[in-house]
């Protein structure tokens, strides 16, 4: 059992948990993830480390409510316990690339982008952040990014123009690339966002890595559920990734595999909501 020490709500659907996990905290690196099994009947689902503290013995992850497990987790409060927490899993993000970096996070991907940006800053890199969200209320971790980076290194876009610049992350990316302001790009978010970021970076010959999020079961390279096609080869995202050269990723394949359980996921959520609906009690 893993105790939730703190719960923070960022927006209607986005939460952060700080969980007691001393051994994990000692070994976590930016870009790695953990797997949660909320309770005895729960599914194993991956979340990226948002932060960790080896001295105090905790790890943090940020999640967006999208289905049954995340809905259920959102009801957990500080003091409650999560049945199982496994990690760190996956390879840390490779930050050896020289020069200035552009870190792009879309939606809940910002939770994954933030620790990468923080680590890059800590290791002496110049970092630009492009923060994308559908609308202002869904923009995560703005304060954290602002305290990390200079004002002119933060680029915000919203699809509906409710905040920052109207549009998608590729517009500021294109400007940065045109101005030769960045030498490396890291992106994480929805598949279309990563795909178009990748095409943009490729146009300028700038290396770009993407943190991929296929469905996982064990997260330890045993089952093969998380396979992705990169450069014509099959890779296991949980042990070979989750970061890959974005220009080589087969995005259609990733999207199809992510969507493989849509029907069942809908069923699970519906059953859960019916069982927990206030009007039924």
């Amino acid at each position: 059992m893993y105790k939730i020490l703190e719960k923070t709500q960022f927006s209607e659907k986005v939460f952060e948990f700080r969980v007691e996990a001393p051994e994990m905290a000692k070994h976590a690196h930016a870009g790695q993830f953990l797997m949660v099994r909320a309770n005895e009947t729960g599914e194993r689902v991956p979340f990226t480390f948002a932060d960790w503290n080896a001295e105090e013995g905790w790890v943090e992850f940020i999640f967006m409510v999208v289905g049954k497990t995340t809905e259920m987790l959102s009801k957990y409060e500080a003091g409650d316990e999560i049945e199982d927490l496994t990690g760190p899993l996956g390879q840390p993000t490779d930050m050896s690339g020289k020069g200035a970096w552009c870190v792009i996070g879309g939606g809940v991907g910002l939770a994954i982008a933030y620790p990468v940006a923080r680590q890059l800053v800590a290791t002496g890199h110049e970092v630009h952040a492009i923060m994308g969200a559908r609308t202002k209320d869904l923009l995560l971790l703005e304060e954290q990014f602002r305290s990390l980076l200079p004002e002119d290194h933060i680029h915000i876009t919203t699809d509906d123009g409710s905040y920052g610049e109207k549009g998608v992350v590729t517009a500021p990316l294109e400007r940065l690339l045109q101005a030769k302001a960045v030498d490396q790009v890291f992106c994480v978010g929805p598949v279309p966002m990563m795909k178009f970021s990748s095409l943009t970076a490729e146009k300028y010959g700038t290396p770009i890595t993407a943190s991929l999020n296929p469905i996982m079961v064990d997260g330890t390279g045993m089952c093969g559920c998380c396979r992705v096609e990169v450069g014509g080869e099959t890779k296991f995202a949980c042990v070979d990734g989750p970061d890959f050269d974005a220009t080589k990723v087969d995005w259609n394949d990733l999207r199809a595999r992510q969507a493989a359980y849509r029907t069942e996921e809908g069923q699970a959520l519906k059953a859960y909501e019916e069982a927990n609906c206030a009007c039924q009690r």
Partner: protein
Amino acid sequence: MPEVNGRWIADMKAPRTPDNEEPAAERAHDFRPVDKGFTEEMAVAEAARCMRCKKPLCVQGCPVNINIPAFIEKIYEHKFGEGLDIIHEQSMLPAICGRVCPQETQCEGKCIRGVKSQPVAIGQLERFLGDQPELASKPKLAPKNGKKVAVIGSGPSGITCAGELARNGFDVTVFEAFFTGGGVLVYGIPEFRLPKTVVKREIDGLKELGVKFQFNSVMGNLANSEELLGEKGFDAIYVATGAGLPKLLNIPGENLPNVFFANEYLTRVNLMKANKFPQYDTPTKHGKHVVVFGGGNVAMDSVRTALRLGADEVTLCYRRTEAEMPARRAEVLHAKAEGVKIHELVSPLEFIAGEDGAVCAVKVQDMKLGEPDASGRRRPVPIEGAVEEIPCDVAISAIGTNANPFAKKIGGMELNKWGYIVADEETGRTSNPKIWAGGDIVTGAATVILAMGAGKKAAADMTKVLLGKDE
């Protein structure tokens, strides 16, 4: 009356006692155990068939050389506890090995009675005893010796080693990546073949011996060998992480939705209980026509699981013929009795996507048997131009595994070029004097009994070395 004037005369007339099975038509639709095991009466009758050979060939056939005639004799005498004690000298997991060993190529394959009649049902007899663990003598526990050992992995190899070491007075901690113990015994082999209560009993027994379990601990990403032996203060490590990554077919369409590796398909059901979705949250695909590639135990478990998930048609495709299948004979027979169709001499070429983007058919190449290969089995060769298409909505590949990538991350010991740990067969010693290893991560995917045996041998050697009794 097998005993005449104090001399043992085996019951030569009695046919082999048939297995005590649930009817195929009923059992194929749920996860109940297929084989109920012998009753006392059946066990004693079967024991009477053993000739108590002076030079028992069956013992040579058993990879850990269990004294088979001796425990069978105890069954005949109704001294079940003593029989169990005899098995325990060589094997700690009779309830499991009795169920899953490929007996027809091991103990029973060598049994002399198999020449003219049918071999003695050694596996069933072993299981009969193994299922009554309460009858065994309490193990002698050595006093605590103050040494700490880390065991990585809780499959049959890890738990056997942990148990032996605990009995020898060591302070043992088992680190397991999953949230529960047992390795392949819980996530791979299905309930209908090996009830999870049997595995749990073994794990609980170890806890009673004082073995500590740290679940959710992926070693290598958490502490590596250096940290375990340094900061964490362990005196030695036994690495038993099992096999790892599924082998790829490397054909087009392999990554389409609803094309599974057997490990995923089986894990979803066995470990995550996807058969009980949505009561349990993990879903799986209930195909109507399921095609499985492979001919081993993993393939058999997959086809039989597919039936139990409600498939109308399940086809097992194998490159060679049924005679060459490496699976336990009983599993092949069970699968067939339950309605699995076997399609021999085909090899997959391509998975084809349907309108919804998921797999809807698989293109296969017809094969014929050619010259024998290095393993002595006739090599399948393609028949030019003979290609057919099999419709399916779920396809499963069960063609084996590669090395577990965490062996490298645990580090500190030599690996071979495929990533398996180099360890001495007799002692389990690796290139690092403080690390021992055994099971599938040393041998490649093998059997429960070999993994168990390796754990036992390593524990004996570790005891000798760590307590300073080495040469």
